[in-house]
């Protein structure tokens, strides 16, 4: 990570917080998250469900419910493929204003988990793709349609001239996700956020969609934020990885470091729980004991200490651990980090 220059950072999150005011109390869905996305690289965000990874991606879009409060800075350094003198702070923008709307879909696009639900069933996919194109790059309907057909062709949809006038329910799940990707990339965004794009798909289709995202990313030099709970997919897709737990980043490093020198007990536990061939033969899977605590009115302690094998009484349950840069570009949030207590994965 040290090899990367600071000036190719395209989007940076600094101490981003998303809190939801619920009747039961304050839900800290995202609590002080910082990371950066570099030009042309893929950042993987991994964590269990409910850890705040999807809320983080929605925060980048400023798409949050009314009772959600956003804090910290989300700095965008490039707009319409031009470097900005002063970065735009998305966190401070009016959530319905014209500025954020031109960024959404134009500079940052998103693909969602369930392609079944992500398209409106009442409109043809063409209608929905052309709408995005008309908003950002080409207001002329006929030209926009041509761009949309091209976009569908680029995601390997056969016979796009005909497919463009079909309704979502006429397409298969994999086809729909391709159409979704076509829509997201049709306006040539500089950042693509993929929120578990393959979870709802068959395994064979999954591989195809992942390849497709990787190819398109290389061709267009797009930066990708890839959100998943699947470490296998992270290994295949990412350059850098953020591990999230309970709304906080617990480990942040490049992908090789994560797999070969994980520092946080949670990361190590996650890696252990990957089913490998070896483990399948032994017939045993390891899982992390306990469940994620309910993130409302949490006590001040390390969020993982109730499930951690290495938790130390009197240390881990007394205060929150700080983020430590144990090596250049390798950040860990653990009291034991950098104290030579490194264990093998």
């Amino acid at each position, binding site marked *: 990570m040290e090899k990367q220059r600071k000036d190719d950072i395209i989007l940076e999150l600094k101490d981003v917080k998303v809190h939801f005011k619920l009747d039961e109390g304050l839900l800290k869905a995202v609590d002080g998250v910082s990371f950066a996305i570099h030009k042309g690289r893929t950042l993987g965000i991994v964590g269990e469900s409910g850890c705040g990874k999807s809320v983080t991606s929605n925060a980048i879009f400023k798409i949050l419910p009314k009772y959600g409060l956003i804090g910290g800075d989300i700095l965008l350094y490039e707009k319409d493929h031009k470097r900005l003198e002063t970065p735009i702070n998305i966190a401070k923008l009016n959530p319905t204003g014209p500025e954020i709307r031109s960024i959404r879909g134009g500079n940052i696009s998103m693909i969602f988990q369930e392609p079944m639900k992500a398209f409106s069933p009442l409109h043809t996919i063409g209608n929905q793709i052309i709408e995005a194109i008309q908003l950002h790059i080409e207001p002329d309907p006929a030209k926009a349609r041509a761009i949309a057909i091209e976009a569908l062709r680029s995601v390997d949809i056969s016979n796009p001239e005909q497919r463009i006038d079909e309704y979502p329910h006429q397409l298969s799940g994999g086809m729909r996700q391709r159409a979704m990707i076509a829509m997201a990339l049709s306006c040539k965004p500089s950042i693509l956020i993929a929120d578990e794009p393959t979870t709802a798909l068959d395994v064979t289709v999954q591989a195809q969609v992942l390849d497709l995202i990787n190819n398109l990313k290389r061709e267009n030099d797009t930066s990708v934020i890839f959100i998943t709970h699947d470490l296998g997919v992270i290994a295949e897709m990412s350059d850098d990885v953020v591990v999230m737990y309970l709304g906080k980043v617990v480990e942040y490093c490049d992908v090789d470091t994560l797999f070969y020198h994980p520092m946080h007990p949670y990361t190590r536990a996650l890696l252990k729980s990957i089913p490998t061939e070896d483990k399948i033969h032994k017939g045993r899977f390891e899982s992390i004991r306990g469940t994620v605590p309910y993130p409302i*009115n949490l*006590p001040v302690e390390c969020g993982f200490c109730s499930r951690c094998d290495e938790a130390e009484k009197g240390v881990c349950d007394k205060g929150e651990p700080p983020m430590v840069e144990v090596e250049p570009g390798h950040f860990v949030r653990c009291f034991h980090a950098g104290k030579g207590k490194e264990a093998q994965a």
Partner: protein
Amino acid sequence: MSLFKKKQKAGTYEVASQWKLMWWKFKKHRLASIALPIIFIMYLLTMCCEFFSPSLPLERYKKYVECPPTAVHLWDHEGTFRGPFVYAKEIGRDPETYRKTFVDSETEIVELGFFVHGSKYKFWGLWETDIHFFGAKEPGAAYFLMGTDDLGRDLFTRILYGGRISLSFCLVSIFFTFLIGLTLGGLSGYLGGIFDTIVQRAIDLIMSMPSIPLWMALAAAMPKEISQLKQYLLMSIIMSLIGWTGLARVVRGKILSLREEDFVTAARLSGAGHGRIIAKHMLPSFLSYIIVSITGSIPATILGETALSFLGLGLQAPTISWGTLLQDCQTVETVAAKPWLMFPAVFIVISVLMFNFAGDGLRDAADPYK
């Protein structure tokens, strides 16, 4: 909200049962938590109406025909505290229309009090007593909280007695609705096949007929010369014959989705009978939906009964219900001359509103995680 905070201390996690979660959510629904005690009070008042009413429903105050409501005072003209009392009515005659007029007396008052002796009655038909919760201390004195009707009967008393009929009627009718809807909906979902088809078509059939004329037609076909009790039961069955469809649909839908669940298959494989599977394994898992659905249909039943009785096609006099009481206000002229005869309407609206609020709260509560 406060409950949640109190119960959940830092670091401890309580696993609340589904009913508990529902109760919390219900209590958070402000209107519903107001509605529940009001419903309770209304049932208490009407179920013990002999005790709470100042008079008897058929007792006639012949001097005080069509007397307007008498306002209860605590202080008299001079501002001295007299306890609860009403001014006595001086009866006069309008020189133009020759109608009776009632004017508050300047001097004479009727003292009111709690637990007064009045007309004799048998409480729930069991104990004979003459104690009334609130009324004139001197028996037979003119105290009409909501005025009197054209035969000089105390309207407030009649409203309480009518409420006993109207409010219990909806429960009885809901009971039949429940019986039919649960049985047919449950069997139709569970058995499927031809039975399901027949029930579904029957539901389509009933739903395509407008309910009021259909009720009217069935009520019209009802024999005229039958006892009050029979009429009451027949009417409630007629209402339920038309009202069961909604519940049956809910139950059927639930059963259809539950039928495929593993725990039901397990029960079937272990040799449990149809009835046992439905009652033991399926029913508990959608009980909350049924309760919501029932509470939701109470207002419609109250409105249906009062509308029919109002039109002279439901319960018939001498049965007293809120609907039959309102039969007196069928023309604008009557209402304009004697607006207090509309008091039963106030009770109808309040009870329907309260049941709507409670139903709303329950609907929210049935989905405690939302």
